[in-house]
């Protein structure tokens, strides 16, 4: 990944981080009634991570746990209906009052979306680490022929 040393980039990314984060969180909560949703929110939040990396700021270095947690949330939401006697993925709808969005009539679906967000961010972080040029020079082609 390209790494910028410019202080301007550094500062502007710092400034943009909370903004983008807010945008992501907005998309997340708005999703059920407006365009948006977990995946879009995850991508925006993931983009924040990318930006931070470009600016040379600290980024998480292992995404496995994040990914696993996201998956676990989703599986749990899917399985939860068993507890109240329904079968699979029977979403529970509850009304919520949130300061910024007003009344939100959503419960387990929101939790479900949270799982999506976690996995998407995890994916982007792992991508960031996976595709980043590691500290090595390309090997000569013959080096690793199958043994």
């Amino acid at each position, binding site marked *: 990944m390209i790494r910028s040393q410019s202080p301007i980039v550094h500062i502007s990314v710092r400034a943009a981080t909370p903004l983008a984060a807010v945008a992501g969180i907005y998309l997340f909560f708005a999703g059920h009634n407006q365009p948006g949703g977990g995946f879009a929110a995850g991508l925006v939040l993931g983009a924040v991570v990318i930006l931070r990396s470009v600016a040379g700021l600290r980024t998480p270095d292992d995404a496995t746990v994040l990914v696993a947690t996201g998956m676990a949330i989703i599986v749990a939401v899917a399985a939860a209906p068993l507890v109240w006697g329904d079968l699979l993925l029977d979403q529970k709808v509850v009304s919520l009052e949130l300061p910024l969005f007003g009344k939100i009539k959503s419960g387990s679906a929101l939790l479900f979306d949270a799982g999506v967000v976690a996995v998407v961010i995890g994916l982007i972080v792992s991508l960031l*680490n996976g595709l980043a040029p590691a500290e090595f020079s390309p090997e000569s082609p013959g080096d690793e022929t199958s043994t």
Partner: protein
Amino acid sequence: MIELVFAIHVVGLVGAAIAGRRSIQGALRVAAIAPAATTIWAAESLLSGREPVSASMTWVEQLDLELIFLADSFALMMTLLVSGIGALVFVYASGYFAVDARGSIRFPVTLLGFSVSMLGLVLAESVWTVFIFWEFTSITSFLLVGHKLSDPSAQQAAWRALMITGAGGLSLLAGLLVLTDDVGSVLLADIAGSQTASPLAAVLVLIAVGTKSAQLPFHSWLPGAMAAPTPVSAYLHSATMVKAGVVVMAVLGGAFVDSQTWQWLGLIVGAATTLWGGFVALRQRDLKLILAYGTISQLGLLVTLLAVGTSKAVFAALSIVVAHALFKSALFLVVGEIDIRTGTRNLDELAGLHRSMPVAFVVAVLAGVSMAGIPPLLGFAAKEAAVEAVLKLSGIEQVVAFIGIVGGSVLTVAYTFRMLAGLSRSPEDGRTITALAFRPAMAIPSIIVAGLGLVGFVLLGTINGIVTPAATELNAGSAVYELLRWPGATTALMVSAAVVLVGSTIGAAIHRSETATVLGEPEPVAARVSDASIDGVLRLSRRVTARVQHGSLPVYLLTMSATVVIAAAAFLPAVSVTHLEWAETPVQLVLGLAIAAAAAAGVQVRTRLGAALTLGAVGVAMSGLFILQGAPDLALTQLLVETIVVVGFVTGLGHLARTFPPVTQGWLSVRLGVAVMCGLGVVGALAASSAQPSGSFPAADLLRESVETGGGNNIVNVILTDMRALDTLGEVVVLAVVAVGVIALARTSRSPGRAQ
């Protein structure tokens, strides 16, 4: 009772496996118990004349796969041979492997497995039972022939035997399908009584018989199978394996009584095999090979008789089956003993055997005389019956059968004479053969079977009591026949006398000339042909594979795209444009064209930047289109995804050259052609399938349910997180796995040493 017989064998298998861990001799002795017990049972049942017992077990009802056994007279007669000789062979083998002190499970268990397969085959009463045990014998004999692991020629022989008999098995399978379809029953009794079988069934069954019973041109595996340990040869080529074909021919023969195909094919092949086998046997110097080709010759005789199918011929065939089992097993056993004790089977090196191994020599003479059909041995009575059967025929049929049977008998006498004369010749340089110590375990079984040839002739009534009912079962007309100790001065006897005279003259002539000039090695033409055909199959397979499996991804993808075009062509008749308008709004058309243009630029793209631009342009135009279509969620997501992908594309391939490698020209036109056809195919299919939709989406339901049950206004989001939440679950897991995979790949980069 039949269940008990099989149960005893299973116990025997387990017992042999346990005993085999300690010593092979122990295992062989344990293994002998089951066949011995079976022999007693069969003999007792035959002599008591009880109603035949039966047993059955359903396996797969739908396919009529049922194991059905019936111990009728024919089955019991065969059981007597299979198990009786089997028990003796086990005893013999314990002597054969006497010096082998190590424990071994493999040989005793496989041999007993073969024995029980053979038993199942002869007791079978339904076609599928026959087939199942038929295949067992192929497999177990494969293992037995290839027993010597360090001998590549044995394995080659085993392979060839399996290929030929395996192909025969397929032919049998096909033949049985046709046969059961013709007859409408899987029971042998129904089939034998039906007389409705088609020529196709006749040919298929005869091919199977020919492979198993080593008829021309499928006989090449049998001499090769001599690479097996001698007890195996003695067992497989006297009473069992090779007789499997004959048994099938006998029990199914009833269905083909009126079949010209069956009669002529069997007659000609059988006669030719008899002559060829006898002729080649004359040229052999290896005792085992003489016996092997002799077996082929005798099997030809049996096939000829069964193809003729008259009541007398069937009777004669069964008599020969009994006689042959006895003298051929005796000869093999004695040859094995000679081989073990002198270290050679070469006729040239065995001159003077009558001095160094007198017992073995007597056994060989006894069995050989029976084989040559000379009184006072069982072989004589059997051959008389055969000659009589031929004399009862008429027309060309008689001529062919006569040439086969009488010619074959002449050759049999000749090679027997030559063999015995060779063994009793005085060694020229006065050298005597040094033989190892006498082994009772090997000698006694051979003495018993050879002696039975004599005893059988003396007690011909008992033999008649076994053979006549068995033959009657196959052909009701056989009830009136019996084997005669001395037929009187009939035409048949004259013929036999002439046979012996001519045969021994030929044998003597060859024996004398041999001392002066050495006959060349026989050409194993047939073996070469069958090996060549297998090689041909292998070569063909390589050529075909090279064609279809290039190993080149672009070629695979082009093939796949071509099939896509073909599949899309199926939509063609339904393609219509009447329901299509140019665009809903002008902007839509503009954006559509813009996407097409940006995509087209992708064909020419040479740099990574160009690729990113193409992608970006398409992505933005797509988002615009989505807005127009009323899909804001899609538009938003598309933009975000595109951003990440473009960033990934630019940075992810960081080490690559900034320009793409040049487009290779070779396949360019093909690629372009297929690609354009694919595009057209997809468009055509879309146009066709949208022409007259047979259903539409439930708009009102969606609107209502989304708010009331789903609790959200964004219907797309409600679908994703609620109605079709399972899809989303899957989608998330896919992303998670990708993340895991990317991390794993990154790790291998960091520690390249760990990779592979």
